[in-house]
């Protein structure tokens, strides 16, 4: 029982990332009818927002500390971040420590801007073109975006830690009444899951309870009719693209402490997220979220030693295998609607 709970927990963080990316993909596909192969790049850009902010915060100048000496006996040169000059030593250190969560504030405007520029500048011109063209041009864009990041940040992963308070693990099992040391779980993963849950809840609430969301949902169901009503749906879709970009970006920001970001992390996640979208059902938001968590957890179960002993290699292929089975037996995915992409 504890082993099962542990695997479910282990699947949650990856599942959360899949769900967030798939949610954005589905929003874009559902509203704009565009298959966005550059969505993984948005996730990656989000992650690098965190890296950038943590670099900005640790931007330092050198002072010579006369009171201390290095091992040669010279006065010690100390790097002092400007942040500590502005806010005092203790507060400055805390701000630097909290760089990753703070990046959320930084990433939201950046990602919305990136999303809106992308939609107005490129995607807009591809609404009427075939899906193959959309895939191709966004595929090209993804290459360009990741190369730009590679140019500025290099090809190696950049470790960026979580705040001190969330480093390390805790005994989750005790909370559920198991014996001690049965289920050890890192703090940050729980934070990530909670964060993902809040974002997903926020997006759904936004779509469900605001007039804006209502129009967008109507537009997803029947674009032409909404346009006939004289509602400027295009502008709303642009904003929706910005929101989807922000969701992917935030997923990236918070994922940084779990996995040090590199320039091709977006593509790695994108391939899987597409599979997630298809399994969930193209154009279905709840389907995307459900399939994201389901596949994340499934993957973690398949990585159990007992399962691998039984079926070698299953952890590597489980997601693809499930996707193929679903596509062949339930072509619309778990919760897909009729008539989406069935031309």
């Amino acid at each position, binding site marked *: 029982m504890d082993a099962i709970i542990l695997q479910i927990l282990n699947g949650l963080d990856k599942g959360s990332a899949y769900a967030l990316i798939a949610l954005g993909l589905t929003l874009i596909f559902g509203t704009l009818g565009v*298959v966005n192969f550059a969505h993984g790049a948005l996730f990656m850009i989000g992650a690098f927002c965190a890296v950038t902010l943590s670099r900005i915060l640790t931007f330092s100048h050198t002072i010579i500390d006369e009171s201390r000496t290095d091992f040669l006996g010279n006065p010690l040169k100390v790097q002092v971040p400007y942040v500590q000059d502005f806010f005092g030593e203790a507060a400055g250190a805390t701000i630097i420590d909290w760089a990753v969560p703070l990046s959320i504030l930084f990433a939201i405007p950046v990602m919305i801007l990136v999303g809106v520029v992308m939609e107005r500048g490129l995607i807009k011109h591809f609404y009427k073109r075939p899906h193959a*063209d959309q895939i*191709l041009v966004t595929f090209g864009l993804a290459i360009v975006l990741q*190369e730009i990041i*590679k140019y500025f940040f290099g090809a190696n992963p950049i470790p960026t830690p979580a705040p001190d308070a969330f480093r390390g693990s805790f005994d989750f099992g005790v909370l559920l009444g198991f014996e001690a040391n049965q289920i050890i779980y890192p703090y940050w993963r729980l934070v990530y899951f909670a964060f993902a849950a809040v974002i997903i809840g926020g997006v759904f609430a936004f779509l469900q309870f605001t007039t804006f969301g209502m129009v967008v949902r109507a537009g997803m169901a029947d674009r032409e009719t909404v346009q006939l009503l004289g509602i400027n749906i295009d502008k709303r879709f642009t904003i929706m693209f910005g929101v989807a970009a922000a969701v992917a970006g935030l997923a990236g920001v918070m994922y940084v402490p779990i996995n040090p970001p590199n320039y091709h992390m977006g593509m790695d996640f994108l391939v899987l997220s597409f599979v997630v979208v298809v399994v969930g059902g193209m154009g279905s938001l709840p389907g995307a979220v459900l399939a994201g968590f389901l596949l994340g957890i499934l993957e973690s179960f398949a990585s159990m030693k007992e399962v691998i002993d039984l079926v070698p290699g299953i952890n590597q292929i489980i997601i693809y295998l499930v996707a193929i089975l679903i596509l062949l037996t339930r072509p619309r995915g778990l919760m897909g609607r009729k008539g989406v992409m069935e031309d």
Partner: protein
Amino acid sequence: MLGLGKKDTTLLLIVAALVVFAPFILNPFPGGSGMAQFNAGYPDLMQRFVIFGIFAIGFNILFGLTGYLSFGHAAFLGVGSYSAVWMFKLLSMNVLPAILLAVVFSGLFALLIGYISLRRSGIYFSILTLAFAQMCYALAYSVLTPITGGETGLQLAQDDPRILDAARDSGNLPVPGLFGLEMRSTADLVLGDWVFTFSAGYYFCAVVMLISFYMAIRIFRSPFGMMLRAIKSNQHRLNYTGLNARPYTLAAFVISGMYAGLAGGLMASMDPLAGAERMFWTASGEVVLMTILGGVGTLIGPVLGAGLIKYMENILSKINGDILHSWFAFLPDGLEDFIVTIVYPFIGKGWHLTLGLMFMAVVIFLPGGLVEAGQRIARAVRGRRSDDRKSATTEPAE
């Protein structure tokens, strides 16, 4: 000639001439000169040109004619490579059986994957092929290590059985050949500062490529090719015209899988090892780039695209900051630095950026790729000429 129309015969002859004289054409700059680094006429790269040309020609038969966008074609390339290396290990170092097995195996494999994937169309088909290819990659990398060599890849070993070959005493690993002619053997021709290298491996690949190209022309002009274009154009009408689209698309899928397998087999014949990374989805993406860049649905386009990308990968990526500085040294210092700074991100390790931008530009502005660009230029030139004399327009060769 050979059952081709006049236009197609001309095209085939031009391609044949280009391929035969490639060691000269791709080596325009004398050795030792500053431009020598742009020479692409060395066997290793020329082999890659034609091998990826074959891969792209095959991909184009599927995507260009039927419009089904496969994102997992590298799987067949990998299967071809593995089969060829196994043939070298078990049977003989002769390349013919190896290539034959590569084509047969990848064909069977394509039949299996195509049969399943083609039950869906559009984006679903793309995702299915992607999923299959990624699955093959993951399996080749882990569980199938006894067959694929896992992370290190599949290599020849001294104690392989090679039942058809005579026992060898020398301590060296055997090399692939064609009835005794080693694939790696070369002959040099020195003319002044120029050194032209003729490699047996290249010419073998070139002949195979010309045959593949010829067969592709035949397919394009056949009733089968016409049906495939009809599938892309209007599957609805096709159904009500008494034709079953499924076997046609499956046949196209298998044929293009066999082309990929052929390319994989040739790759292994030039350098007898095979690794799982050949099946990774980026490799599948690369052949998509080649086909689109050159001109999807045209005959010569994929070959041009393959050549361009492989040239960029091998030549553009070698340019570094120092070389740039030496080029722009004639400019005043400040301007020189400025221009080098601007150009630098697009070359060397950043060549993928150039590739990505070019690819986007082609998709946005030139859906017909390089071939369309050529046609537009030709039309503009002809337009100027026909002001003088109104001549009957001929269709530009594809």
